Every structure is written in structure tokens, then in C-alpha cells.
């Protein structure tokens, strides 16, 4: 369902528009949202309305950085270059990867209903403005842990639709980070292979990877954060970005300083992920290392068309949300939400 359809759909519309602060295209600073003051660009805790579930946001100031890795970096791959200067506008970013506690409220309407108190139910009901995932065919935790553990195995569409749902619920525009935003936030001002330096031995303190994860995800935030207070940017789960994956994307920026570059996806494969996972060797956790989705990640989905919401073989994939400081208009926001592309197998 796109935003246009939401706006024409009666009672649900009222909730959506008021909660999202979209009426009269007001900027959030002028809107009637009581819980948040726009002028304070600082860390805050967002509550998923009507539930006790919260998540934390960390401010990431705007600035410039060198994206990609220098040709001298150990274990570097060609798609990490050419290294080029990028300008990034300020945003908040999830302090942690999105956990099952948060994601399941979106996946299961029944859980949302049960977690809402009576008065908030009366006020809004469960949010039907955004479509929800089909129940997963498999146990999507893969037995690796649920409460406090990162949600895994969702497609980029599933992750982005969670952001759409969260936007409708909270009135704040949440989305996936672009690859550029992600790398900027991961580096946190550093220029080394990892945000803590060049030696992968530092992952003992900062990142879950194949060598220390004992074959599974770990509770978010159980290692040290980077300099800007973001946890698990290296490892635990590889994180979705908003981009289509293109190994040659950087070439066009070699001689310019682009602001907020984003390669908007138009194809089902491949989409970009960052940060590496519990199932990766240390070199895949480097700040500049890029990963991309593959059809084999759905190989055990026995149905055709295959699920648009879930992978079956990507228990190393998760995501975190960002919120740009400059909240776009409803029309601009609508451009971020994607329509599902049917997957007839690959």
C-alpha cells in the first residue's frame, strides 16, 4: 500500500496523518507531536506507541568523509573504490540493531494488539495503514535467540516496510541508512580499516564474527560501541542499507563531492548490506567492506513466488534504522517506500 492509498482510506487516514505530523505539510518543529522537540539534536529513546517497547537513537552530525577504502588497505576488494569524498547531512541512527522485540510487533498483529494498553487501542487500534509480513515459513530465529537479539532473515523490502510502519506509528520518518550514511556512521571519524584501528584483533572487543560468535547472533550491545556510541557496527548481523548494490557505483563520484548519494533499488537483486556478521571472517567486517544479497539466500523457500518478506537462508542479515534531521514532506517520504517485486526464483 503506498501513501496515496493510505490518504484515501478513511478512518485509518486520520490516525496516520495526525500521528505522522503530515497535516498541512508542517515541519515536525511546528507539528503537534508532543513527545519530541525538534531543536534538540541529541540522543533520545523512542517508544513504539501503545507498547512498552522502546529503542534508542544516537545523533550523527553532518560532515564530510572519505568513502571506500584506500588501495593499500589489507583484504580490500575492488568494489570499495575509488575512495571518494562524500557529504552527509545529519541524522539519528539506531544505537543498536533492530531486535525481535521491536520487529515482532510489526510482524504479528496479534502481538501488537496484546502489547497495546486499552486506551491506546481505543485511540488508534492496531495500525493497518501498512501491510505486514506473511507469517514466516520457518523459525526465523533459527534457534539463535529472540528477546534482545537482532531480528534476522528479513528482505530489504521487509526491513524498509518495518520503517514505513514505524513512521506511521511514531510520526517520525524512519528509514534504512544509505550505504554512504552507514559507512560514515560506522567510521565515526576514523580512517582505518575498522573504526578502532587496522588490526582485526580488536574485534575481540568490538565485533561478533565467525571466530568469536560460536555460530550465532548475540544480544545487541554486548560489545563496545564505536566513537559515536553505535554498537555492533562491526559484525553480529550484516545490516541492510537503502541501496541497490552496484560494484561500480563509486566511479561517478571520483571527481565530485556528492551529498547523500543513494542508488535507489529497481531490481530484486542485489541490495547492499554493511558491517558483516557473526558468520563472516574479520575482513568482511571492515568499515568499507560491502556485501550484497543473493538468490541463494532464499533457496529453502519452497514456494513460488518466493516470499517478498523473508529469506530462509540469511540468518546473518538484520538492520538498524535512521531518521534524517530534516523530515521530508509526505510526498518526499512516499518516494522512499518501495513496492514489492515478485520473486519467481533465480
Amino acid at each position, binding site marked *: 500500500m503506498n501513501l496515496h492509498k493510505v490518504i484515501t482510506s478513511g478512518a485509518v487516514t486520520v490516525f496516520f496523518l495526525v500521528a505522522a505530523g503530515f497535516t498541512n505539510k508542517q515541519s515536525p518543529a511546528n507539528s503537534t507531536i508532543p513527545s519530541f522537540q525538534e531543536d534538540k539534536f541529541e540522543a533520545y529513546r523512542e517508544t513504539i506507541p501503545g507498547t512498552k517497547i522502546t529503542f534508542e537513537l544516537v545523533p550523527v552530525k553532518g560532515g564530510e568523509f572519505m568513502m571506500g577504502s584506500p588501495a593499500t588497505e589489507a583484504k580490500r576488494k575492488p568494489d570499495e573504490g575509488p575512495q571518494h569524498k562524500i557529504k552527509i547531512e545529519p541524522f539519528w541512527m539506531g544505537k543498536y540493531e533492530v531486535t525481535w522485540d521491536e520487529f515482532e510487533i510489526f510482524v504479528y498483529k496479534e502481538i501488537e494488539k496484546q502489547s497495546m494498553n486499552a486506551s491506546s487501542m481505543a485511540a488508534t487500534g492496531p495500525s493497518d495503514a501498512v501491510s505486514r509480513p506473511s*507469517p514466516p515459513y*520457518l523459525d526465523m530465529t533459527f534457534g539463535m535467540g529472540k528477546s534482545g537479539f537482532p531480528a534476522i532473515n528479513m528482505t530489504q523490502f521487509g526491513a524498509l516496510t518495518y520503517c514505513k510502519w514505524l513512521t506511521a506509528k511514531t510520526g517520525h520518518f524512519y528509514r534504512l541508512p544509505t550505504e554512504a550514511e552507514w559507512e560514515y556512521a560506522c567510521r565515526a571519524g576514523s580512517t582505518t580499516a575498522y573504526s578502532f584501528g587496522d588490526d582485526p584483533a580488536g574485534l575481540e572487543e568490538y565485533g561478533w564474527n565467525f571466530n568469536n560468535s560460536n555460530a550465532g547472533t548475540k544480544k545487541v550491545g554486548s560489545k563496545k560501541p564505536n566513537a559515536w556510541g553505535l554498537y555492533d557496527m562491526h559484525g553480529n548481523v550484516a545490516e541492510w542499507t537503502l541501496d541497490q548494490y552496484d560494484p561500480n557505483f563509486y566511479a561517478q563520484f571520483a571527481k565530485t563531492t556528492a551529498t547523500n548519494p543513494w542508488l535507489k533499488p529497481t531490481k530484486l537483486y542485489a541490495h547492499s548490506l554493511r558491517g558483516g556478521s557473526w558468520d563472516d571472517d574479520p575482513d568482511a567486517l571492515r568499515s568499507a567492506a560491502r556485501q550484497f544479497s543473493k538468490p541463494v539466500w532464499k*533457496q529453502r523457500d519452497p*514456494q*513460488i513466488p518466493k516470499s517478498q518478506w523473508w529469506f530462509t537462508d540469511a540468518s546473518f542479515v538484520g538492520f538498524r534504522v535512521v531518521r534524517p534531521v530534516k523530515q521530508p514532506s509526505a510526498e518526499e517520504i512516499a518516494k522512499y517506500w518501495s513496492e514489492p517485486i515478485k520473486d519467481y526464483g533465480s
Partner: protein
Amino acid sequence: MSEEKDLNTTFPHLSRRGFFKGSAALLGGALMSQLPFETNAYARYGADDTIKVALIGCGGRGTGAAIQALSTQGKVKLVAMADAFRDRLDESFTAISTKFPDKSRFDVSEKNKFVGFDAYKKAIPLADVVILATPPGFRPIHFEEAVNAGKHIFMEKPVATDAPGVRKVLAAAEIAKKKNLNVVVGLQRRYQNAYLETIKRINDGSIGDITSAQAYWHNAGVWVRPRKPEQTEMEYQMRNWYYFNWLCGDHILEQHIHNIDVVNWVKDGYPVSAQGMGGRQVRNGKDHGEIYDHHYVEFTYADGTIFNSQCRHQPGTMNRVEEVFVGTKGRATLSGDGKGIVTDLKGGSIYNHRSKNDPDPYQTEHDKLFAAIRSGNVINNAEYGAKSTMTAILGRNATYSGQVIKWDDALNTQLSIMPEKFAWDAPTPTKPDANGNYPIPTPGVTRVI
């Protein structure tokens, strides 16, 4: 590794029973000369011959199976499609033609699209291999028809929803064996490296003698298809088939059979009795037909081993889909996502399967089937498919009735849950009351044998 050796590795229980003793060529040749049947898989398909396929049941799984069949090595072509519903057939046609735009693999003309309850009878004669992927209640009659027509078969699990259906499949399986027909059943764990490698170690004695087993299928459940006013009761039940026993057999059968089959596989046998409990806690609406949302069954094998089986479809509860074996020296944990862990009783690692680069077992099923057809080897999974189906039905009998149910009594019952007639205006085995609710199986009251 030769194909024969490979098959022996894949089907250790079959090889123990001597199915693959001697060379495959000798076996095929010797049997063929004595058999009155004209079908001879061995002789008919060389590497360059096109194997024609018909798809019976064009839902998501059938469509997936057809695409896997068409993705095997050598010339293979889908030539006919059958479904009860035209719209389901059309959706499947679109999906397969998107994947295979070239007519050398997918060439189903309008006259080879068949719709209705008897569609299968028209599609089966047109093919060499049939894919049976309708709701499981129809499997016995479709399997029987395909075997009688001398076709090789891929059939999805489960293979029946009641004991008369299981007996029909077992009888047809015997005929298939005599005709040297290949029958692969979609219990894909039997074709998955994590299982093959881990179970090999269990069979080698890594965990000692097995003293108990546990299996789980816990997740949120599946789709619901709402009733539409123009539908007859028969059409509504066919569309919302998961929630009606004659079509689906309850989730203990339709999904948990995967885990139950793994325990039978490792035990190399089937339970002699079962008792258990179950009910409907969250799946209690009119859209939810008559099936339960949880079952807990204690199966007992002939040697006294207890197998505890749990399955649950309840959103928001613990997810777990696994099988666990406890032995005198260790334990093994397996799951469909590729886990295969063997430890000693103190948790010390004996084997930990790394599945990252394993092949897709759903594809492997078809690769093995078509390779066997071309080489003249014979795979016949029908017997274990039928008996694991029966095991899950035994469990359902136990939870619905609240009694101890014996295997022999359950298998031999004359009680059928199928409709007497298949037609859109025919009566269904269960009917809603004035409020739209269906009679729910009640322990202490419901009769199962």
C-alpha cells in the same frame, strides 16, 4: 563418487534392506525380464531424451517443485498442468513462464491446462513424470492413478490424511516397486547434507544407543483464506484447505511430519503406539476450520524408546523447529536450516555440520529423481512417506481422542474422513453450524478408529 555409491550413502536404510545390492543394471535387467509391465524406466530415457512432466496441483509448492524439476540436468519439459481452480493454474503458469520463457522447457498449451476435480486424470497420461502437489487429501487417488499409468512420481508430503488413504498409497507403492517406477517424496531432510552427515554419525554410534527423542515444530502458523459469499461449502474448504482435516490432516501432519519422519529415519522403524494431548487456544475463529493449534504426543517404539513430539502454531510464542536425539553417550540436534550438532553428554563437541555451501535439498530431490530415471536406478520413497504420514495421523488420533492408540488399530481402521464424492456442490465431511463454527475434535468424545 559413482551414482550407486552416492545413492547408498543417501539412503542407508534402503541399502540395508538390499534395495541396491548388486549393480543397478543387473537389478533392473533381472526384474524387467520377469515383469509383465511394459513400463521400463531403464530403457526409455537416455541422456538425450526429453522427459515430459505434468504438474498436478498448481499452488506455491507445486509451482516451486515444477521449477525445480525443470532445473535438473538434461532435457526436461513441462507439458501439462492441472488444478481444481483456474486462477491458481494461471498464477502458476505466469510464474513458470517468467522463469522459463523458452518453450524447450515449458510448453503447456491451452488444451493441456486442465481444471476441476478430475483434471489430474487428463494431465497424467501426457507425461513421463508427474508432480503431485495438491492438498494432501487427494494424494492417494492421484498417486494410485499415476502408478497405474506407469509414471515416475514426485509427490509432496504428507501422502494422505487418513488411514484408508495411507493403505491405498502403500498398495500402490508395491505396484510402483514392481514396475520399477521412481517415487520421490518431498521429505527433503532425507536429501539434505546436514541430516545425511549427522545421521551417519548417529548410526556410527557417536551418541551410543538412543534412549529418547524430541521433535518440535513451533511457529506462528500459516495463511487464512477468508470465505467469499459466492462460494459453496466445498469451494470454501478447498480454498482454505489448511484448516480442514480431510484436505490437510492438521498441522501435526502437514508440517510436523518433517520432524516425525526424521525420528522414524534414525530409529529405522515406526512407533507401536501413541498418547497425547492437544487443542485450540488461539486458532479458534470461524476462519480456522476444525484443526488444533497445538499437539503434544508421546510415541513409543517397539524397543521402548519414547519420542516426545511437540507442534504449535501460536504467534508470539517460542519458535523452534528441530529434532533432538539423546543416547547413552551423547546427544544430537538437527534442524532444517542446516544445523547438525553432535556432542557428548557433557556438551563436548563430536561433530558440528557447516552447512553454508550445502546444496538446496528441495533441488536435490529433483536432481536425484531425474538422474535415477535417466540412469535406470530406482528410488522409491513411497513406503517411508506413507508410514511417516501414518505416524503423524497416529499422533493426531491420540490428541483428538485422548486415548492410547495402537499403530495396528490406527492403520487398519475403516474410518475414512474423506468426502464420498468430489464436486463443488457435494457435501463436505464436516459442516459449519448456524453460527459458522465447525465441530472441533474433543478428547474423550471424538472417535478416531
